[in-house]
């Protein structure tokens, strides 16, 4: 595979499996963890999502990109049960998730974060993390009053929470209220908390928005290490450097549809993708997606997110 040498700084075995996948929307993957079919969602007259077919490969990092309003967040909501599609069916590990409640989706190992961060600001950072642990005996009504029944599990969870917090450079903040964190730190906490659920697939909606550049670099390393641990990552991101750096595969959405798929390098220079980002004013001589974003002054970034620092 000649493409691999410059594709990823850290070559991944799992990514190699994608080498023969055709670079077209809806391409079948050798080992898909998620398969979505004919998913549509309309708001009033607006067709926010209309995905004919999409497969997400297991064990790799897939980036979902697209201009604002492309339907990425809505698609996340649909896949994880937080919103219901008008039509469509989708499965996770071969189990259909149609009409499955969001908490059940999470328990099955498909955990998402939110574009508008949802940390529990009146809980401490450590309590936020502990909340993420699954299968807690102390969360049962009958066992809850008897500390002896759950304290062992709680301290094991605490140890794990502290390890994760250290990775995300939040360990010094563990006893602060989450509400006192900056926007970027909240993003980090939400990501760390999602990992407390021990997911098989973690879906991050703009995880790096508002995170300071120095920390971003080390986080990229952590996301890659998730892949080494066998986790599958699907993330929405606008920062093309980051997409290029860590993703094995890129899916591009525009106006609700998947318009392109492929490894990062081929996507960045794909004319359909550039067109989608440029929209109408298409007279400039631009050959890379990064040029587009630069030319637009990262306008997309500014409009979209919340919680910027």
């Amino acid at each position, binding site marked *: 595979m000649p493409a691999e040498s410059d594709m990823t700084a850290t070559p991944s075995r799992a990514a190699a499996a994608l080498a023969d996948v055709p670079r077209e929307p809806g391409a079948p993957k050798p080992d898909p963890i998620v398969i979505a079919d004919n998913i549509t969602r309309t708001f009033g007259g607006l067709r926010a999502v209309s995905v004919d077919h999409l497969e997400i490969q297991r064990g790799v990092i897939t980036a979902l990109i697209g201009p604002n309003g492309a339907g990425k967040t809505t698609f996340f909501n649909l896949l*994880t049960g*937080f919103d219901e599609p008008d039509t469509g069916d989708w499965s996770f590990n071969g189990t259909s998730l149609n009409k499955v*409640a*969001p*908490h*059940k989706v*999470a*328990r099955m190992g498909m*955990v*998402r*974060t*939110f574009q508008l961060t*949802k*940390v*529990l*600001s*009146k*809980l401490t950072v450590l*309590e936020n993390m*502990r*909340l*993420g642990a*699954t299968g*807690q005996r*102390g*969360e*049962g*009504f009958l066992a*809850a*009053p*008897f*500390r002896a029944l*759950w304290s062992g599990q*709680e301290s094991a969870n605490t140890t794990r929470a502290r390890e994760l917090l250290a990775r995300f450079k939040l360990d010094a903040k563990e006893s602060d*209220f989450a509400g006192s964190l900056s926007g970027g730190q909240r993003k980090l906490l939400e990501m760390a*908390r*999602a990992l*407390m*659920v021990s997911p098989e697939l973690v879906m991050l909606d703009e995880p790096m928005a508002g995170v300071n550049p120095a920390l971003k670099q080390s986080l990229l390393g952590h996301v890659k290490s998730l892949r080494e641990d066998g986790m599958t990552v699907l993330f929405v991101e606008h920062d093309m450097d980051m997409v290029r750096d860590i993703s094995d595969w890129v899916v591009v959405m525009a106006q609700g549809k998947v318009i392109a798929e492929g490894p990062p390098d081929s996507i960045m220079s794909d004319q359909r993708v550039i067109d989608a980002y440029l929209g109408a004013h298409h007279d400039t001589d631009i050959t890379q997606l990064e040029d587009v974003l630069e030319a637009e002054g990262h306008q997309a970034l500014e409009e979209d997110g919340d919680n910027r620092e």
Partner: protein
Amino acid sequence: MEILQGAFHDAISPFALSYVLAAIGLNIHFGYTGLLNFGQAGFVAVGAYAMAVGIASFDIPFVLALLLGILAAVILALILGIPTLKLRGDYLAIVTLAAAEVLRLIFSTSFKDYFHARDGVSGFTATFRSLNPYPDTMTSFATFSRNDLWVMTVGWILVALVCVYLWLLMRSPWGRVLRSIREDEEAVRSLGKNVYWYKMQALILGGVIGAFGGFIGALGLASVQPDSFNADFTFIAFTMLILGGAARILGPVVGAVLFWGALSAIGSLLVQLASGDNPIIPPSMMSTDQASNVRFMVVGLVLMLLMIYRPQGLFGDRKEIALDAR
């Protein structure tokens, strides 16, 4: 001195106890879980009626009657919760408010053989009173009758037990889930917790504690009357909760005691000021008969000031809960 004695009497009386328990139940709903139950009076009422009618009309044993009252509260919670807890918070508020009124109307107009309309249910206290350990020779203590004393003893022990139990619950991971739901239920869902079921548990638990309030109130008055369970009941219980501080174990207890104490003290003070040959408050402004209504106005004013200057209640933690949270 007399004023203080009266205030003390009212603050710890069986009547106040039923409010204390109702407010503790509301604290679980509103304070910890963020559920807006505007029909706590309904839970108190079904508890009281189920126990009273069970004994008076069907002659079932006292303990069984208590269990029946608890069961009634659980069923009411399920009926109210199943259709509403998946929807936005306001639905629960509307449905509970309406349900409590409907229940009150049923108790005051229907099944007269059992509920006896406005006369209320009586004749259910025999077993409870026969258990009274205070000596027969003691007809009264301080300002309380022997019966009152017995009800209060049981009632305050019950309050203490409930508070300890809640303290244990709320410091557990279960309590953590409730507090998280209060803040952002979507986040809790995304972490794999069944939010609907936790809300249901909270609604049931708070409702059952409300029913305990119904038991104590009924045993204290030796009768159960429909109009004691009007919407005012719920709002006074809310007032106490907010006065003492929501999401604090002792908040509703302190709030209820202070509320009745202050209400009684202000009432007697107003009566004193308005009576005598040369009253400080002239009869043209307020007669002694009006004092009992005016005292509610004064308490209302105090509450308004409290909300403005201390919205987390007297003992609440502003960081953890404020009414304008969000």
